[in-house]
């Protein structure tokens, strides 16, 4: 049977399985690797880890559900994650978040949706330059409401990232199956 994972990803997974003292230690890096390629971690991926690589689904799911960075549902292509913890909040993160959410909602309503979702997350660790935000893996400092809108506009005009394309393709393929 064909592997659930791409050959390159399988190689990575095997690399991680041998990299640490125990196979279990490789769960976190493997999940990161899957997410980097597929944009999220599906149930099928977890089950494939058990079937193909012998990692217990319970162990994997414990880790998957415990850490917030793993996405358990298919996301939009870009995630604007704005820190809402104390330092960023003091510098107006709430405003940034609501502006970004409103912008996304308005775009949705106007019929020209942007491939964005906006979340409030806990501390991103660069508190001096608040508010701090991530767009996927890119970090931005001093993200004022205007800056957030600009970020959304800039990214929306770019080509979608590879992971997002793969995610969309996977979902389309899954929808085709009975």
């Amino acid at each position, binding site marked *: 049977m064909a592997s659930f994972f791409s050959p390159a990803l399988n190689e990575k997974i095997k690399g991680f399985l041998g*990299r*640490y*003292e*125990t*196979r*279990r*230690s*490789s*769960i*976190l*890096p493997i*999940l*990161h690797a899957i997410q980097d390629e597929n944009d999220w971690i599906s149930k099928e991926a977890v089950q494939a880890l058990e079937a193909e690589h012998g990692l217990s689904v319970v*162990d994997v799911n*414990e*880790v998957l559900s*415990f*850490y*917030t*960075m*793993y996405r358990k549902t298919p996301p939009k292509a870009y995630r604007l994650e704005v820190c*809402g*913890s*104390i*330092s960023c*909040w*003091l*510098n107006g993160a709430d405003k940034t978040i609501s502006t970004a959410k409103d912008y996304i909602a308005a775009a949705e309503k106007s019929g020209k949706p942007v491939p964005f979702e906006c979340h409030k*997350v*806990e*501390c*991103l*660790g*660069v*508190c*001096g*330059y*608040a508010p701090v935000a*991530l767009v996927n*893996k*890119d*970090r931005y400092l001093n993200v004022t409401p205007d800056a957030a809108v600009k970020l959304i506009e800039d990214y929306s005009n770019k080509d979608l990232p590879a992971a997002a394309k793969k995610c969309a393709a996977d979902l389309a393929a899954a929808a085709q199956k009975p």
Partner: protein
Amino acid sequence: MPVMNSPYMGRQPSEFKILTELEGVPNSRSLDVYKEHGGYAALEKVLKGGMSPDDVINLVKASGLRGRGGAGFPTGMKWGFVPKPAGEKYLITNFDEGEPGTYKDRYIAELNAHMLIEGKIIAAYAIGASKSYIYLRGEFYDEIAWCEQAIKEAYDAGYLGDNVLGTGFKHHMDVYVGAGAYICGEETGLISSLEGKKGQPKLKPPFPAVKGYLGKPTIVNNVETLAAVPWIIRNGAEAYKKFGTEKSAGTKLFNISGPVVRPGCYELPLGYPLKRFIYEDCGGLIGGKKLKAVIPGGASAPVLTAAEIENMTMDYEAFAAAGTMLGSGAVIVIPEDVSMVHVLENLMHFFKDESCGQCTPCREGTGWLLKMSRDIVNGDGAPGDAEKIADVAGKMMGRTICTFSDAAAGPARSIPQKFAHEFLEFYKNKASAAHAQG
């Protein structure tokens, strides 16, 4: 506490450059630049200069270096807890910088991750560990890359490997990336995470220095702590002790956040006056706002009122005497126009989100604290609620495996106690709202 006669009154912070020596140096992250500034000399001194592991431990003990992650435990003493007999031992660097207000470790990596790596190799030599990890939080994409790059360079230069600098000392290093959990900054939580489990802290005893990662002796040190080690080796314990106060030796990275004019990471000697730091070095609050309160050591430190910081110095003892803590050196400045009730709600939201859910008082208590503070914010509070929050938080303190519940209780007790009058306003608002509704 002797606060007025601080020896550093009047000195400029730029004089103290132990960790921030490469500040402003172009291309600072490269190995060459690091070596130009004395990089890896300490490692050579240790490995080739005939220092025994005990010599290193004693030197670090003598320097008075204390853990910079928050608890301030003497580093040399911690290394001394590791059982002497040979066997697998691990050294882990805690780079899971997640405490709101803290961004000092990433600053070290941004300047030059080799400082950390050199410190780590020396520490590993001291405790006899042949494998070490840098545990980074997952959101630090840039920092992960910098550390990986530096480790690669160190391998290439022969500082890491089966035969470090040809001395026969074997040491391997790897990075491990977390995935978004504040609790992994707790040393045993970090170990659990490194074992590929949920980042839930482990019961003590046994302590990690005896039974840690995979049941083997393990030392977990903060980035800043380890990064200070090479300087101490190069310059000696006495040189290090010249900085700081008697019990809080050396310099520390202080990171200020909130609406200040010049936010950033400042290297200052311990014992530096807090007020001067905020107003002179950081330029005071944006727009000349008045200061209402300061959280001196990251989100989990109890707050200080503006009045309390008047003569406060920034060292372990002075903060402890004021009922708060130095923590990670994260100074969060709260201006007068922000309600402390909202601050409380924001902090409780953080702690509720980040509780690992293992111990009952913390799992249930953090959620409860958030619900109660949210009720007050939403105008559903009643007189006595602030006291209830402080009371519930008090019952969580010291009752769990790790100190997370104490951390949550820090603000949850201090804010209702010190700013009770602000809560009263919220209750009043409720009454007036009810009145308006008829």
